[in-house]
């Protein structure tokens, strides 16, 4: 702030005694005098009411005023963001090439040793397999169900004379109820489902027994190989509602005329869905796909609460163990980088595969 005050003092037109050449007041607009330039810079960093008149009445002031506003408004969000999001990410790439334990202040630069170890780490690949399974299956199932229900809600109703398409009765109520799981914290969901999966007093086994599917009952849902499917089911369960509401919204923006035209062509509901609804909501589906994929890649809360220590791992839970249990922060960040790469590849793939010309209507 020192510079600001001195610049202000200089405002009335006195030349700062810095030994520069005397100001020549040419009227060439592209070449402001050094003083003016200084004033402009000063004004950029001070509140508008401190702006010297000379600057305020300059033709370029409008732009300065804009930039100043932009700078002031952007600085705080950007600072917080750079500090707590971007800088840790950048650091992670560096730490991933060290043998830093996280406990002590010193570490050794090891190049790609962590990545080499990662490549040969069976436990990591087990975790990665589970994560990729969730990454592929969770969006597929969740979005599939989401689209199905959304279509049913907006087009599953009775045919009526005056409408080409109509929602089922009480569709608003369904949307509210479907959204319930999305409102609950993953921690709560994990606690609830741990109890549901409990072999002796959980309702899953009880429920299977009640409908006569005794042979489907299991002694242990969350410890063995079935665990990944159990986690997948919970993941889908918790997100379907979100996509039903999202897709319903997207579908409601499709003009009714489009449906009427289809109806005139004699299209059934199935054809309507695949020829009209699905293509016209594709953009939303694609965005949703990426979002769901990222959620599936995380799954940390579910796995860390539901699955016993000896059971399955996903990449985030393996990373957490390495960083905070085994004191291998360097290796853990290498795992993080691998996770980032998977996310990146997935998103890029979805962007590319799913790219098609946006259909205007």
């Amino acid at each position: 702030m020192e510079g600001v005050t001195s610049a202000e003092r200089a405002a009335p037109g006195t030349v700062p005694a810095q030994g520069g050449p005397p100001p020549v007041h040419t009227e060439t607009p592209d070449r402001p005098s050094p003083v003016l330039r200084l004033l402009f810079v000063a004004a950029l960093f001070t509140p508008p009411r401190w702006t010297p008149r000379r600057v305020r009445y300059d033709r370029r002031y409008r732009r300065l005023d804009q930039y100043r506003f932009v700078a002031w408004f952007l600085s705080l969000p950007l600072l917080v963001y750079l500090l707590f999001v971007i800088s840790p990410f950048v650091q992670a790439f560096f730490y991933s090439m060290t043998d830093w334990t996280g406990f002590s202040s010193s570490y050794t630069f090891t190049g790609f040793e962590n990545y080499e170890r990662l490549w040969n780490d069976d436990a990591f690949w087990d975790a990665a397999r589970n994560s990729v399974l969730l990454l592929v299956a969770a969006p597929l199932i969740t979005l599939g169900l989401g689209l199905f229900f959304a279509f049913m809600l907006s087009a599953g109703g009775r045919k009526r004379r005056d409408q080409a398409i109509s929602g089922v009765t009480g569709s608003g109520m369904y949307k509210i109820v479907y959204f319930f799981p999305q409102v609950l914290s993953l921690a709560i969901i994990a606690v609830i489902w741990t109890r549901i999966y409990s072999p002796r007093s959980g309702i899953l086994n009880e429920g299977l027994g009640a409908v006569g599917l005794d042979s489907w009952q299991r002694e242990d849902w969350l410890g063995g190989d079935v665990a990944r499917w159990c986690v997948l089911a919970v993941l889908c369960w918790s997100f379907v509602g979100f996509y039903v509401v999202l897709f319903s919204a997207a579908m409601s923006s499709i003009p009714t005329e489009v449906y009427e035209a289809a109806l005139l062509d004699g299209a059934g509901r199935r054809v309507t869905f695949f020829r009209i609804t699905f293509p016209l909501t594709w953009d939303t589906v694609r965005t949703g796909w990426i979002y769901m994929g990222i959620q599936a890649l995380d799954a940390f809360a579910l796995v860390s609460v539901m699955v016993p220590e000896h059971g399955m791992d996903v990449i985030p839970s393996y990373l957490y163990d390495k960083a905070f249990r085994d004191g291998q922060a360097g290796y853990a960040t290498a795992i993080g980088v691998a996770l980032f790469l998977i996310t990146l590849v997935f998103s890029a793939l979805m962007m590319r595969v799913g790219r098609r010309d946006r259909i205007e209507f």
Partner: protein
Amino acid sequence: MNSGPYLPRRTLIRRSAAAGLFTIPAVSALSACASGGGDDDSNAERGEVTENNPFGVTDAELEVVIFDGGFGDQYALDAEALYSAAHGSVTHDKTQEIQSRLQPRMVQGDPPDVINNSGAQAMDIAALIRNEQAYDLTELLDAPSLDDPSVTVRDTLMPGTIEMGQFGGQEMYQLNYAFTVYGQWYSRTALDRIGAEYPQTWDEMLAVCEAARREGMAGWTYAGVYPYYFNFTLYPFIGKIGGPEVLQAIDNLEPNAWRHDAVRAAFEAYHELTARGYVLQGSPGMTHEESQDEWNQYRALFIPNGSWVENEARANTPPDFDMAVGAPTGLDSSDALPFGALWASGSEPFLVPAQADNTAGGLEFLRIMLGRESARNFTELVSSLACVRGSADGLELPPGLTSAGEVLEAAGDNILIPRMPDWYRQLNNEEIGGAIAEMMAGEIEPDEAITRCQRAADAAAQDDSIQKFTR
């Protein structure tokens, strides 16, 4: 930094140098203060040393974190009252999530002064030692005991206590406060009801399980979510069949240690319980609490457990239960050790973090805990022996603890102390535990379980990031 032979090939970089690589403010801020300076003990400010104050405790605050599990935390609160009467105030905290609560604080370099590092979510003590996070308690051992200044603390401890705190050297890093008897826990009432005697050989075990089944009771239940509970009887069973050397080889991660005939015999015997349907339905997915609940309801006869179970299950134990423990059932008459051999050792570990602000206070707190008053109080409150000699003398003991004392006496010198759980926590709990879990759930055969254990042990033996110990 145990990078050993690789060190010369690498460039050693201090954090401050590394931070220069980035221009982002947060990174340069990193250089300003090292997070958790590894081995400085500038924090350990000591006051004047007197006869009653051998560590020079000041009136600085003491922070104690107790694992709120089977033993609760009342015994610690009582010891803290003694501490604060003589020295500074005490901040007390209890939790079941030791690791997720405290590990970040260890990493941060701001740990509490005393940690009761126990439970399913304990921190990996070997990793802590490797990273120089645990304070050497030798000073405590050589200090005069609380009750008699002419006797050192070392001489008041139960046998095996010091060894259990050592990790391949003379330094003692953790104090196991409880003395635990592991074995097959059961209800005498239930055993009487089916008209059986406690089984000493595996054939007798199968017969008892069959008899239990006729009474509508399963032979066994166990905490499938924490399958290493099985190790409490499985390890001594292996040692009993093949002798202590087999366990020693396993602890030392020797090649083919798991392929010993004794291991195979033990695995096959346990697998038979599952194959014949003697294990309570649903056990593979139960927590320890759930399985104890079922056991208390007379739905299963035996449960592999340690002597903390009497206190842990107190609320749900029927009054007529008459809890007891037996040494692990042997295989047959060809066993290397007599039937009485069992696993008994210290448990309920306490440690003083190396970076604690008040290490002197931490040591003094442990010295108070090891005093006669606190030890007896512990035994009375939680019905478990303490690691102090004579902690149970003259006390009226509940049935489970009485029975633990009896089997301990019967065992004589045949006490087995597997070190696997402390030395290689992850290997013990996740890999070996996982293999046993699947075998007991009937998903894999004993052969495959053994192969998996051996493979995991080999992998651990070759993993440079795991500290190795031998005995």
